[in-house]
C-alpha cells in the first residue's frame, strides 16, 4: 500500500473490514513513515476525545426507568412475597396438625366432670346431714 491508501485506512484498523495481512502491512508502514505515523496520531487524538469525554448518566434516568418498569410488575411488598408466605402458612398448619396427633388425649374434661360430681355429692351429703330430723315436710295448700 502507498501512503494515500495507508492514510485512508488508518481509522478502519480493528473495525473488521481490513484483512489481518492489510492491518499488519499498515502497522509495519507506520513504523517507517513519519507522515503516516503523524496522521495516525491525529486519528488517535480524535478517538481519545470520545473515550475521555463520556458523561455519566444522571441518576434521575435510572429512577424514572425503575418507576416506569416497577408499575408493570404490579403491587408487591418486598418482605411479603407470595411464595414464602404460602410456604410459611402451610408449614404452620402441618406443625399444628402434628401436635394434635402426637399429644396425649386431653383429660381436662374428665377431671372437670369428676370435680363437679364430687362437689355435688359432697354438698348433697352436707345438706342431708344439716336437715334437722324433727322438721316435717310442709305442704302448702293454695
Amino acid at each position, binding site marked *: 500500500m502507498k501512503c494515500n491508501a495507508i492514510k*485512508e485506512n*488508518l*481509522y*478502519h484498523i*480493528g*473495525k*473488521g*473490514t481490513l484483512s489481518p495481512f492489510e492491518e499488519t502491512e499498515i502497522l509495519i508502514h507506520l513504523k517507517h513513515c513519519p507522515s503516516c505515523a503523524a496522521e495516525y496520531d*491525529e*486519528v488517535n*487524538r*480524535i*478517538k481519545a*476525545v*470520545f*473515550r475521555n*469525554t*463520556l*458523561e*455519566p*448518566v*444522571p441518576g*434521575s*434516568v*435510572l429512577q*424514572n*426507568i*425503575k418507576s*416506569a*418498569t*416497577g408499575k*408493570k*410488575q404490579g403491587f408487591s411488598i418486598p418482605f411479603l412475597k407470595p411464595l414464602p408466605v404460602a410456604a410459611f402458612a402451610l408449614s404452620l398448619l402441618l406443625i399444628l396438625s402434628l401436635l394434635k396427633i402426637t399429644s396425649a388425649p386431653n383429660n381436662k374434661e374428665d377431671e372437670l366432670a369428676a370435680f363437679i360430681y364430687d362437689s355435688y355429692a359432697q354438698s348433697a351429703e352436707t345438706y342431708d346431714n344439716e336437715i334437722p330430723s324433727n322438721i316435717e315436710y310442709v305442704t302448702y295448700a293454695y
Partner: protein
Amino acid sequence: MDSRLDKIYKQHGKYVYNVALGMLKNRDDAQDVTQNVFIKLFNSLDSFRGDSDIKTYLYRMAINSSIDYIRRQSTHRDKLEKMEPETSVSMVDSLSFYSLIDKLDDDHKAVLLLSEIGGFKYDEIADILQTKTGTVKSRASRAIVKLREILSKEAIK
C-alpha cells in the same frame, strides 16, 4: 427493577446515553431518549434470545429515537434556541466528543458514535443502522476526513 434489565442498564446505560447525547447535543433530550429506550426494552425483554440482539436493539433505538427527536424539534428550530451553547473548538483536550462531531451529518455522527462509544465493528453498525457494511466504512472515512479538517483549521487559528 427487573434484575435482567438492571444488569443491561449497568452494562450499556452510560454508552446509550452518550450516543444519544452525541446525536442530540442536549442532556435533557438524551436523558429522555435513554429512559424511553430502556422502558421499551423492558416491555419486550422476553422476546430477545441473546445479549447481542439486545445490544443491537438498544443502540438502534437510541439512534432512531434521537433522529425522531431531531426531526420533531427541527419544526420548532426557528423559534427555539439551542439549550446548550456551542463549545469552541480551540483545544482538542478541552473538547467534548459531541461538540467535535457537531458539524457532521446525522448519518456520519451515528457511525462515529457507534464505532467509538458503542465499540462496534462496521458489520455490527451496518446491522444497527440497517445498511451495508461498505456504506458504514465510507461514512466513517468521510467523517474522519471532516474531523481532521475541523481540527487542522482550529490549529491554524
